[in-house]
């Protein structure tokens, strides 16, 4: 009964999404205020039904209703409750339901926080987002209904994939989807602006906080996924250039380009077309990511789906949105006027250059991700693109990006003299180089060129970011007061850039200086590794709630001093007959020690993996800074105060312009 209610709620949500699309968009085109006014209530009502539908599925999981096929396939009576909740989205159908729910949440958020925006604009945004809703709800109802039943119901379920039975994986998908789907808001704003016919700069200002929030969620989602892979896969790796990771990484890169391009369009009234294109691109890549992960064209832990009709449906959806928005773009964009004037050496140019480089970087990732699929589709054999490709292309591309970050932030809008910029920044450059080389040499290793480069560019970002404060405060009388009242967007930018520097340091040092050892050990054995002594104290059996574990207890000491005791488990989940490794990790700001149990070799001996990973935490610490920067920037009052001005002083202009919209 509950499942049927959920199914019914989903159908109702589709009906409302259709209303939410047709009336507001048509109303905006025909100046029909009543039709336009349907946008907000429709968006909120859709959310009510989506929440109902999602709650019904969650209830089916919590109450072990195995007559629902999805529950039978992905849950089990032995499964702890928290994982029954995450099992809701630990599968194809449920994760798409989550996608649609989150889309509905974003749409409702737009309906709530857009009171100062002109009605016809909000109507169009909500209408476009409704169109996306229709696509995904149809997809759910036609190909991936999560509420399908089977009779007779099995006694017990097939259990959730043990890899997904983890706290990190409970929050990773919702975070990631908040980011993915959040780009639909920027997309909605861009399409609404194109539909309106005049691509002014106001839409750029309006979409800035939304885009920044989406990107912030995506940052956290990706970082959580990386952290999860690190401790859960038992390999000590934190990024594999796996197609599924790339699928989330590409919109993230374009998101960065979009955030900066929106800022330029907002402030300087230039690059309007490029910004719109980036907004379309970011959302397209979100859809492409969904297609790659959900269609089953890839093969990895995340690919739950194997049914080709689903793949074709998402591909059609992708084609519709990409094709539709590009046609609209081609039709409307030529009429755009870029009012601002700037010279080739100016902050505008540097920001443009970096956004182009971000797009190029995205394309290199895209190529490596889909090339194997294309070759396979053409029947030219099977191949894969190794991780070294991505490293050797992506990292060199990031070097000019990092250089330009530092220069751009200290270059004036409109025009600047490169000589003056050089004079301003030369000591910072020298400082980063000297300190970078010194610090790189302190970590003695044969591969210190990479280490020195990594640390130098990170210091460059840090110094140039701090220098912007010096420039900001230099000529002000009351420095403390200025600092306190400084715009939040400025602080957000600095925090995010410093976060990027922290991540660069983490990636560089972990990649260059991690050491690992695969060792055969019996209880009582000890091994010297990375300056520590690892002593295998014992190996014992241990029952878990829904698994049987073998646990190794490893004592770690340094120079005779006890450092820590680590435990690594090898778990067998009997329902799926699937083994899993739970790594033992001793975290630290400057190094992680990492032990994972390999395989039993004979009666007593096991193989063990030992890792020493310096600065690995910095990778995720940097991501937290980037997200914090995003939050600060999104909270900047300037976006909202100006909204007010627009609804007040500029409302007349907007209304006067409205007839042109047809």
């Amino acid at each position: 009964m509950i499942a049927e209610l959920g199914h019914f709620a989903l159908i109702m949500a589709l009906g409302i999404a259709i209303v939410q699309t047709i009336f507001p968009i048509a109303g905006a085109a025909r100046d029909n205020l009543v039709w336009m006014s349907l946008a907000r209530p429709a968006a909120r009502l859709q959310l009510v039904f989506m929440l109902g539908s999602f709650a019904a599925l969650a209830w089916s999981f919590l109450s072990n209703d195995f007559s629902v096929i999805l529950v039978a396939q992905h849950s089990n009576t032995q499964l702890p409750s928290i994982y029954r909740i995450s099992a809701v989205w630990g599968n194809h159908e449920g994760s798409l339901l989550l996608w649609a729910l989150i889309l509905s949440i974003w749409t409702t958020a737009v309906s709530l926080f857009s009171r100062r925006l002109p009605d016809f604009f909000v109507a169009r945004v909500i209408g476009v987002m409704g169109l996306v809703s229709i696509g995904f709800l149809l997809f759910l109802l036609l190909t991936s209904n999560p509420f399908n039943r089977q009779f007779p119901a099995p006694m017990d379920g097939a259990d959730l994939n043990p890899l997904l039975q983890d706290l990190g994986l409970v929050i990773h998908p919702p975070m990631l989807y908040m980011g993915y789907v959040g780009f639909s808001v920027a997309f909605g704003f861009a399409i609404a602006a194109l539909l309106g016919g005049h691509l002014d700069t106001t839409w750029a200002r309006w979409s800035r906080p939304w885009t920044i929030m989406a990107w912030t969620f995506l940052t956290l989602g990706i970082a959580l996924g990386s952290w999860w892979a690190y401790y859960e896969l038992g390999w000590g790796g934190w990024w594999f250039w796996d197609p599924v990771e790339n699928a989330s990484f590409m919109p993230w890169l374009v998101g960065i380009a979009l955030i900066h391009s929106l800022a330029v369009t907002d402030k300087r009234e230039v690059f309007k077309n490029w910004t719109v294109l980036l907004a379309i691109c970011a959302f397209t890549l979100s859809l492409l990511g969904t297609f790659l992960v959900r269609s089953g064209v890839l093969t990895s832990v995340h690919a739950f789906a194997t049914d080709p009709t689903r793949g074709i449906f998402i591909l059609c959806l992708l084609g519709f949105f990409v094709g539709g928005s590009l046609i609209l773009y081609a039709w409307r964009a030529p009429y755009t006027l870029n009012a601002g004037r700037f010279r080739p050496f100016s902050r505008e140019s540097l920001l443009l250059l970096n956004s182009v480089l971000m797009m190029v970087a995205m394309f290199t990732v895209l190529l490596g991700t889909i090339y194997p699929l294309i070759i396979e589709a053409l029947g030219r054999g099977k191949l894969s693109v190794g991780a070294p490709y991505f490293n050797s292309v992506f990292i060199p591309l990031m070097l000019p990006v990092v250089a330009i970050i530092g220069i751009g932030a200290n270059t004036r809008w409109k025009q600047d003299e490169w000589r003056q910029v050089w004079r301003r920044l030369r000591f910072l450059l020298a400082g980063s180089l000297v300190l970078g080389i010194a610090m790189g040499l302190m970590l003695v290793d044969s591969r210190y060129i990479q280490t020195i480069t990594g640390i130098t560019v990170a210091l460059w970002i840090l110094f140039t970011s701090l220098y912007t404060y010096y420039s900001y405060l230099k000529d002000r009388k009351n420095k403390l007061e200025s600092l306190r009242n400084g715009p939040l967007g400025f602080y957000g930018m600095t925090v995010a850039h410093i976060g990027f520097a922290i991540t660069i340091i983490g990636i560089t040092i972990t990649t260059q200086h991690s050491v690992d050892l695969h060792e055969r050990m019996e209880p009582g054995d000890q091994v010297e590794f990375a300056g520590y002594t690892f002593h295998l104290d014992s190996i014992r059996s241990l029952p878990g709630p829904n698994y049987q574990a073998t646990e190794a207890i490893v004592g770690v000491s340094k120079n005779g001093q006890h450092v820590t005791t680590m435990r690594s488990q090898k778990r067998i989940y009997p329902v799926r007959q699937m083994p899993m490794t739970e790594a033992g990790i001793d975290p630290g700001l400057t190094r992680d020690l990492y032990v994972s149990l390999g395989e039993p070799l004979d009666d007593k001996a096991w193989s063990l993996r030992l890792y020493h990973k310096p600065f690995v935490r910095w990778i995720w610490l940097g991501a937290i800074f980037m997200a914090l920067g995003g939050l600060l920037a999104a909270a900047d009052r300037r976006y909202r105060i100006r909204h007010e001005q627009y609804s007040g002083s500029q409302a007349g202009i907007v209304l006067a312009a409205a007839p042109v919209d047809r």
Partner: protein
Amino acid sequence: MSPRRKRIILILFVLAGMGIASVLLLTAFEKNLLYFYSPSQVAAGEAPSTRAFRIGGLVMKNSVQRNPDSLEVSFVITDTVNTTKIVYDGILPDLFREGQGIVANGKLVNTGVFQAQEVLAKHDENYMPPEVADALAKAGGTYPLPENHKSK
């Protein structure tokens, strides 16, 4: 500065970016393409002898042999028609077991043995790497392996 010159500079920026990227791409791309070969293709001499590639198949029953003093391990994989011996020095993945489909990255060494750099088994008991499923279908053998199917 005229809009025309601005546009030219913009295009130059894009071209320069694309140019650098293409050079990096083409060199790195070619080096890192890993093609997949089945044991039958290896037996027919189609696989490259110097370049790294991927191989996949089912792990034969009773073919896993360990060196008692180290982590060296060898096993035989099959596409039900031909077999290839694989040697590996390291820890096998959690889901590695006999009868399971696996994929390995590495090179052929002189003796016609495949030296694996990495062995991959997927995290699902029903899961068969698609390359392996494909290779089995092409070879036309039967799956699951009959119990008496012995290594050559």
